């Protein structure tokens, strides 16, 4: 079964993509994920200067998902450009970048562009790093401005990763107006867990972002609404861990899915999901394109 598919300006061998911030800090790690079947891989989000991230605990498995407050640790684009270069080869590599304003986004994009990533993903949605991510991604004007400046700076496709807003369509439209080739929905949902024995919030940063199975129905709703309203591709992310999850997203309108937390159970998740999707399509004698958006009634 042919799972090749065009997604936001890239051609992928299958519609499963490694999500940003997961196993994306080194070329070796990205390549290992590619070898486990991912159709494309996204790097950890990179910024203008090195950040150590928040103190631990930085990631907790909750009963129904995962909660993280990594705090955007990264060695800066100056350092990361070498990893990015080395990461290329197997499958398309998408460089996730962040900044506190349009200028910083441009600087990082230009810096990493030397390593010729296959696409950029703008992190306008990380919920636990003051002044970054979500702080910008909730403002349609800023989303448009940042998308435009990066789009003008580079020649490869630019994807915009959105926070799980009630009015996600509004920022999705802003990204589209800014020239985005695709939107990616969703980043984690701001959340917290408290240790009742000690009375402390468990994360070092207290508040973090919820991912995994718990958020899947929220992500699916976002994809559904974005697909109905936008003309550009929508990439679904949030709680995908099985081929059924992936098909749900595709039926909601996703061109591809990104996978993060499910790595915890099995790094083979990409291969397993591709296999499951292929079997599903074969049984029905349908293609991915046939399935895309069928839940839009």
């Amino acid at each position, binding site marked *: 079964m042919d799972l090749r598919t065009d997604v936001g300006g890239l051609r992928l061998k299958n519609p499963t993509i490694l999500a940003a*911030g*997961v*196993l*994306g*800090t*080194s*070329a*070796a*790690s*990205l*390549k*290992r*994920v590619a070898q486990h079947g991912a159709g494309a891989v996204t790097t*950890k989000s990179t910024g203008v200067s*090195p*950040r*150590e*991230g928040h*103190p*631990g*605990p*930085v*990631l*907790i*498995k*909750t009963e129904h998902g*995962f909660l*993280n407050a*990594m705090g955007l*640790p*990264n*060695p*800066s684009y100056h*350092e*990361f450009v070498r990893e990015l270069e080395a990461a290329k080869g197997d499958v398309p590599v998408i460089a996730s970048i962040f900044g506190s304003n349009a200028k910083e986004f441009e600087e990082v994009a230009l810096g990493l562009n030397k390593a010729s990533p296959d696409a950029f993903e703008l992190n306008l949605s990380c919920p636990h790093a003051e002044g970054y991510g979500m702080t910008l991604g909730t403002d349609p004007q800023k989303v448009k401005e940042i998308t435009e400046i990066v789009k003008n700076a580079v020649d490869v496709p630019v994807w915009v990763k959105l926070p799980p807003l009630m009015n996600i369509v509004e920022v999705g439209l802003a990204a589209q107006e800014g020239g985005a080739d695709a939107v990616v929905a969703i980043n984690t949902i701001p959340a917290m*867990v408290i*240790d009742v*024995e*000690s009375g*402390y919030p*468990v994360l*070092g940063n207290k508040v973090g972002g919820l991912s995994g199975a718990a958020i899947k129905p929220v992500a699916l709703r976002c994809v559904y609404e974005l697909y109905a309203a936008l003309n550009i591709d929508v990439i679904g992310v949030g709680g995908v861990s099985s081929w059924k999850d992936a098909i749900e997203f595709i039926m909601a309108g996703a061109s591809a899915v990104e996978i*993060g*937390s499910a*790595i*915890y159970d099995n*790094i083979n998740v990409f291969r397993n999901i591709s296999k499951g999707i292929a079997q599903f399509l074969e049984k029905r004698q349908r293609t991915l394109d046939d399935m895309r958006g069928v839940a839009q009634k």
Partner: protein
Amino acid sequence: MMPINAKITKIVDETPSIKTFFLDLTLDNKPGQFVMVWIREVDEIPMSPSYSNAITVQKVGDATSALFKLKKGDSVGIRGPIGNGFTLSGKSILLIAGGVGAAPLAPLVEVAGGKKIKVKTLLGAKTASELLFVKRFRSAGDLQTATDDGSDGHKGPVTELLDELDLRGYDQIYSCGPEKMMSRVLEMVKGANMASKTQFSLQRYIKCGMGICGTCSIDPSGLRVCVDGPVFSGETLIDSEFGRYARDASGRKVRL
């Protein structure tokens, strides 16, 4: 996996820089597996249990210093056990431990003792007073020590003790300690064609301890120290970053 609250029931001074913290909790780990220890308001750090209910800690920075300030009755959060741990096999084994690297090896020799496996330990430290778990290693088998200042046993790196041994005489070799030391061990076992029979416990920056964040991935395999390790066969480590560089909290390469 949420942290479980563990109360400190006893604190033992092992050496001037190392203390053992006993907890009201059975950690239920294989030797070489580790737990994440949450020192509230400070950080969460990886530690390999030294007893079924204790961790043995060297004070090296913020989190370990904060841990050293805790008293009996205080508590920490514990997640784990995590990782693969050592695999015991053979009838005669050799251990090379440096500094606090003795922590996960002491329970290993005790399990080996229970299985009637012959154990020889080479234990190194800066100075005599810093040699960790001397009694435990001695009662489980043969022990040779080395100190930088010659205050006990051989004067010089513990790896120099290897020169006198026929490494092929052992069914399995285990090592834990400073990476420079382990990297020398790797060279020697490689020379003796024993790399595939040697298990190293690696220390890398661990953030999530869940195989998700990628902080602990090593080059060029991309294997994760936290869940694919922390114990790796010498064969896996040949021609890797091991002994050459590691990464700091930001992901930047740091030469060793």
